[in-house]
């Protein structure tokens, strides 16, 4: 099972293991990692699952599609490595993924 490491805004790290095919939002929510709200449950409609992909992983997670891009434009503290975590599916190629969480979602 691939692992994902979440690093909260205050530096606290949580590593979780998820079944391949799980999205990053669920990896956080299902394991009680706070900092991701995910109000729409992954429908790409709320932008409350904002995260930053660690620079070392950016190439492998790909880039956001048009809908995600437009939603991202409105998150707090947009950065070049901003993503909506519900849109990233963890497979074996992302084993060890490092994700940073923003201070606030809204």
């Amino acid at each position, binding site marked *: 099972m691939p692992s994902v490491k979440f690093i909260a805004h205050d530096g606290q790290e949580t590593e979780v293991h998820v079944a391949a095919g799980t999205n990053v939002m669920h990896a956080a929510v299902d394991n009680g990692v706070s900092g991701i709200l995910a*109000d729409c*449950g992954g429908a790409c409609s709320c932008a409350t699952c904002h995260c930053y992909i660690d620079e070392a992983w950016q190439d492998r997670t790909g880039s956001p599609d048009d*809908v995600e891009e437009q939603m991202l434009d409105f998150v707090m503290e947009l950065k070049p490595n901003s993503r909506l975590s519900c849109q990233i599916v963890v497979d074996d190629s992302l084993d060890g993924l490092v994700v940073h969480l923003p201070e606030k979602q809204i």
Partner: protein
Amino acid sequence: MSDEHAVIIGASHAAAQLSAGLRQGGWEGRISIVGAEAIPPYHRPPLSKDYLAGDKHADELLIRPATYYEQQGIDLVLGSRVTRIDRAGKEIELHDGGRIPYSKLALTTGAHVRKLDIAGGELDGVFYLRDLNDVDRIRAYVGPGKSAVIIGGGYIGLETAASLRKQDMAVTVLEAMPRVLQRVTAPEVSAFYSRVHAEEGVNIITDAQVQAIEGGAGVEGVSLADGTRIAADLVIIGVGVIPATELAEAAGLEVNNGIVVDEYARTSDHDIVAAGDCTFHYNPIYDRHLRLESVQNATDQAKLAAGTLCGKLEAYNALPWFWSDQYDLKLQIAGLSQGFDRVVMRGDSETGRSFAAFYFGGDRLLAVDAVNRPKEFMSVRRALGQGQSADPALLADESADIKAAFS
């Protein structure tokens, strides 16, 4: 160890958020969620979308896995219907006679489907769509070449039509009003959805007066007052919901088009909070009392309710928003359009599949229906949340940056 016990009735969106919120807010006592359905809280919106279309598995619907509740010390009492609240004795009574004492109680009982009193309504193959269990039963009737009639052209009816078309069924939608989505959108938006559904092969009949559902052993068709008869292997009725207030009412709590709550999600008994589809609450942004059927409201109100039970009062001040996915259309709605007197269109709703309809009441922007326009949706969410106003001319001007329209 505290001997306090927070009991939540209903196990869905509001309950999931409320229980998590209690722990985050420092509630140290017991927490129990008692729900009539047999599974932990799950995402209801996919029921008429990805799940009905067969693109999502039941496991993927859970809001949080069962292990989360275990880890947080939240007891799930599932498949259990609460039959009575004893406020004097501070206990709830279950269908099997069991009793659970509470120190604080939360009502997240949601809504029941409105039943249609119609001949043939009890036939095999006739369904309402609210719970996972409903969809699991419906799916046995779904298949290529079979036909479905959907009674009700609201969001759920139209989403259901789209999901069934995806599986190559012949689909007819019967709407009693002159246009689909009549109660919730402008004529332009209704016309857009009618056109797209027609393009996708759905037969929409408006001003339809359903007379009877016909059949023998199982459903065979639906007949209309004008003599039309439409064949059907499956009939799905989606004509709205009514708030689940029966427990609250019997317990003597104030009920008026929902369980009446104050801005802190408290009912008329301050040891009892309520959140979600079952509530009638005040919204300061629109300065009126509302009953909403949305995940946003269930979640936002549940957060407040949890805070209230933890002794941290925070007043409700959330902007309503909603979404609906059909075919390749991603509709996102921010605000409430009721009472609008003008609609400003951005983009082409008559031939294209991407536009936004901005609703105004006088000079005031009330809401947006944005189809495949996340940017317009998010702009309005932000602007209304911050009390900004909007310039209709700039909203209508596609060459102008949408963000420039707000100040």
